[in-house]
């Protein structure tokens, strides 16, 4: 028996692992000190906890602990990386290269730089699987390029970019490489040296840690990367990010990293099994379902599919005891379907029909069976109600129809 509702939206956020909560608790009560208090034991205790967490975070990505700067989350890390590099290296150039399927935290940071005239930005396209072509990157580089910012793995379709290759190109050309690795850290092996990453954003709440805390890795050697701080104040975090440290959150982030590192291999195998079971179940029972994203270079817990002839929001409504998300316009504030799915060249109609499943640490095989059943049943019901399904079965090519819309 499964307990409802089922949470299968682990790209959006994850529940906090009980072991993480346990590690955090003392820092709310008896160990509440300010890590910047240098002259009493409360402060020392807090500082020690932060140091330990910094080690745990660094270990997960193959960095040194002094290269870890704590932030309020990946949105802040992305802003700091992009704006911080462009401001610091303004005498060197003003060109940034990113990719169309990046998270809004990256895209909107780039837009802000364009708006204020601080940078020009090239947005690389992706192929039908959502992957950037390293040759496109090479061709986009100019002698004014100061930053390449490409995500490790996409939060909607799960596609993993050829990061090590991008890192090599950046190194070759002497350009700083920032990688938003929010969805990859703790899920697939990430190593800043192997991958040639100079700046890396990560977030606790995607790896079974608390919300509102994250970090940015800043390379200290080969080359040393510099940033202009975006938050002025008491000079915390080596001056790169002022503000009293969120000790409880940091302890949670550290513990989450430690667990992820220790259990990644086993967890990946399990998640991959669950994801493949879900995918196979859906594809066996329904015709005209399409996988969005890369068939193999993909996050283990990710499954993004379009159910032709069924609109995404109506499907979500029909499976309301299952938490997943949709690229449908009707679920977004802008009434535009997902820009990520559209960037893969997926038909608009199929973009409206896309559903993202995010299988995570606490999902079970029984839940996957339940979700498979509910989803296939609801898709069948909605197709019986769909004029598009009817037309397609009558052999009408929907692309030749002249639609009337406002």
């Amino acid at each position, binding site marked *: 028996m499964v307990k409802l509702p089922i949470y299968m939206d682990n790209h959006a956020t994850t529940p906090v692992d009980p072991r993480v909560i346990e590690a955090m608790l003392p820092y709310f009560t008896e160990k509440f000190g300010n890590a910047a208090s240098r002259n009493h034991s409360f402060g020392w205790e807090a500082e020690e906890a932060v140091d330990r967490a910094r080690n745990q975070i660094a270990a997960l990505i193959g960095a040194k602990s002094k290269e870890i700067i704590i932030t309020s989350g990946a949105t802040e890390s992305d802003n700091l990386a992009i704006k911080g590099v462009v401001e610091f290296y303004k005498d060197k150039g003003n060109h940034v290269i990113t990719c169309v399927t990046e998270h809004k935290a990256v895209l909107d940071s780039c837009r802000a730089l364009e708006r204020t005239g601080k940078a020009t930005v090239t947005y690389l396209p992706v192929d039908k699987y959502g992957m950037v072509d390293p040759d496109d990157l090479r061709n986009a580089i100019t002698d004014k390029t100061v930053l390449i910012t490409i995500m490790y793995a996409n939060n909607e379709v799960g596609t993993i970019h050829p990061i090590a290759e991008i890192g090599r190109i950046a190194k070759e050309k002497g350009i700083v490489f920032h990688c938003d690795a929010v969805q990859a850290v703790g899920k697939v092996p990430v190593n800043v040296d192997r991958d040639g990453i100079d700046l890396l954003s990560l977030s606790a709440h995607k790896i079974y840690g608390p919300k509102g805390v994250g970090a940015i890795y800043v390379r200290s050697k080969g080359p040393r990367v510099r940033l202009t701080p975006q938050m002025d104040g008491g000079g915390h975090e080596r001056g790169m990010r002022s503000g009293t440290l969120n000790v409880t959150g940091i302890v949670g982030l550290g513990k989450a990293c430690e667990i992820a590192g220790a259990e990644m291999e086993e967890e990946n195998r399990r998640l991959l099994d669950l994801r493949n079971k879900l995918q196979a179940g859906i594809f066996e029972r329904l015709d005209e379902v399409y996988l969005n994203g890369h068939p193999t270079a993909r996050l283990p817990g990710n499954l993004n599919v379009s159910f032709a*002839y*069924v*609109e*995404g*929001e*109506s499907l979500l*409504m*029909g499976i309301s005891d299952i938490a997943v998300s949709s690229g*449908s*316009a*009707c679920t977004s*504030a802008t*009434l535009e*379907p997902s820009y990520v799915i559209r960037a893969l060249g997926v*038909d*608009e*109609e199929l973009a*409206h029909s896309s559903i993202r499943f995010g299988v995570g640490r606490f999902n079970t095989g029984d839940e996957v069976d339940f979700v498979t059943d509910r989803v296939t049943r609801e898709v069948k019901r909605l197709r*019986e*109600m*769909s*004029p*598009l*399904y*009817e*037309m397609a079965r009558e052999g*009408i090519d*929907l692309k030749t*129809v*002249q*639609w*009337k*819309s*406002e």
Partner: protein
Amino acid sequence: MAYSEKVIEHYTNPRNVGSFAKGEDNVGTGIVGAPECGDVMKLQLKINPANGVIEDAKFKTFGCGSAIASSSYVTELVKGKHVDEAMAIKNTAIVQELNLPPVKIHCSVLAEDAIKAAITDWRKHQEPAVESADAVPARTAQEG
């Protein structure tokens, strides 16, 4: 966003889903919306040519839950009404009945358009010149 009870009720138990048999007489078909926009509504009305009263209605909808509920409600609303009366139905009546939030108003507009398109289609086929040969439900969306 939470759905109103009435939307959920219509979505769960939609009324009058389906299509009339091909070639059935006195049926007007309205198809509005476009797949690229994420919504397509097909409304068919069976109208008595002698008195212009809508005797039956069927729908199929590709769209969000509110679009499905709007079309389901509309099939109930128009039954028994004279076409002139049905032509005068405003989307606000649908918004009110289903308690639609502002972002879902366009779903009700679509339903209003579907009624008008279906009746227009029926009227077109009532004109003596095009009568019998053309009584098949329109396969393409309405231009009107």
